[in-house]
């Protein structure tokens, strides 16, 4: 019945890449300009993120010009926020949404999904998190916030 894993897997969860992003988060802080700001909470533990997105027009549709944030949370949620910002900033929104979907699939795969390093880059370090159901929510918090904020901007401009 159990799908959670024991001590020997701790290193699978806390990959060096994750701990590095945790100690030195990329793109942290709230910046101007932005078109949407959202606030997401993990009700179980109280982790929170305030996140802003700034989109600009590109040749093939909108582009993620900037993602800035203020987040309180555990190593997994903080590192995930940092990796997410790395992955989506500078990408066309459409491509960024596809990356979001890939990350979601990885996280919900209960450890059975093999991630594509070309797409997810540092994000592949989260493959181990998928084996810890209680932590999946941590890894997804800011991704969900980003998607929400982006959807808000797209709706406004639609």
């Amino acid at each position, binding site marked *: *019945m*159990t*799908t*959670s894993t*024991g001590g020997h897997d701790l290193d699978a969860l806390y990959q060096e890449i994750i701990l590095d992003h945790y100690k030195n988060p990329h793109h942290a802080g709230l910046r101007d300009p932005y078109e949407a700001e959202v606030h997401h*909470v993990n*009700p*179980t*533990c109280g982790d929170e993120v305030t996140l802003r997105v700034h989109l600009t027009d590109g040749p093939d549709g909108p582009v993620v010009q900037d993602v800035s944030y203020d987040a309180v949370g555990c190593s997994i949620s903080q590192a995930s926020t940092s990796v997410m910002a790395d992955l989506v900033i500078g990408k066309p929104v459409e491509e960024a949404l596809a990356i979001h979907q890939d990350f979601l699939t990885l996280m919900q795969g209960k450890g059975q999904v093999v991630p594509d390093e070309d797409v997810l880059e540092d994000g592949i370090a989260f493959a181990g998190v998928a084996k*810890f*159901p*209680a*932590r999946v929510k941590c890894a997804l918090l800011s991704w969900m916030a980003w998607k929400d904020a982006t959807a808000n901007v797209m709706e406004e401009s639609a």
Partner: protein
Amino acid sequence: MEGLLPDLEVVRKDFPILSRTLAGGQPLVYLDSANTSQKPQCVIDRMVDHLEHHNANVARAMHQLGAEASEAFEEARDTVASFIGAPSRDEVIFTKNASEALNLVANTLAWAEGDWSSRVGSLGAGDEVLITEMEHHSNIVPWQLLTQRTGATLRWFGLTDGGELDLSDLDSLITERTRVVSLTWVSNMLGTVNPVAEIARRAHEVGALVVVDASQAVPQMPVDVVASGADVLVFTGHKCVGPTGIGVLWGRREVLDQLPPFLGGGEMIETVRMEGSTYAGIPHKFEAGTPPIVEAVGLGAALEYLRDLGMDRVAAHEQAITRYALDGLATVPGLRVMGPTDPAVERGGAISFELDGVHPHDIAQVLDSRGVAVRAGHHCARPAHARFGVQSSTRMSSYLYTTPQEIDALVEALEYTRSYFRLGQ
């Protein structure tokens, strides 16, 4: 006999209580399943395994036991969702019983806002709530409280002499003023099966919210919430071979999203500040506090058991036994069944009757002395009894483990009752 569950004797072995003997060494003839059903060993075992090996609080716990308990609990939600054909697992809310589920809707509607454009809104004078005369008290009193508190009006469908809904004044009952229609799918007293989909269709034409009490339907027949036409449908665990302490409220997401919170507390929140709080999405919004965890696990096992038997076959068994019982009861002099008796009419397994010259209490007492367990009283359906001009009745109710021999024992015990009270032929 056609329609009976194959391997009925094997099925009976799944239920430990059925091999119990009563005072005087009488074997148990349990004909009170509409009141509460018996539990198969697999349900009991699953609960014991949970308590002995996986017990922890859910959602809140980050440790291995917590993950196991949460998984077991949420798996039960998946099982319920698939058992009733819910479009989304999030639409399945665990309550403590069917009564709480019905009250959840009625109680929160007192605080709801909106213009009813999507079947939820605020209630006041001029608005109407429509129920039926055959409802269980748990589907009457909540609406009385709601209408008293909001100034809305309570109306109801009457019953025909045959125990069916009197739909002749449908057009004057379902009108533009109707905001809520709440009715039972299968009557726990009369056994009547109501045309819920048809009534739901009419109710939706006027924009009313449709609440279906499926407490007696889910145990007995295949239920698909979407096909039923209901916006909200409730049932209770203990009547479908599950434990007490757990009920289910299914509701369309759009409806549940609009209803204000019911109980406030742990797990139903998003953020709590002393100055005010925001609430979680469904299902958690309606599950304040520690939920009935081991009970959900038990209910999951119960519905798996029913699924494995096959609800079509459970329904066929119920119908065969009910028909056999109606035939048997017809042989008892002075016995009058309330509710549908026409073999062509589909009906549920609850059969309430009167026996000339003996009060239901006395019937139940004599039956009990022979090990036959039935219910005497108004079965929480006093208005339906009043409709038939009686104070109370005797009710036999069968289930998937009931045998024709048990029906024979009932009929014999009724004959004995007549002779005990010295009634002539």
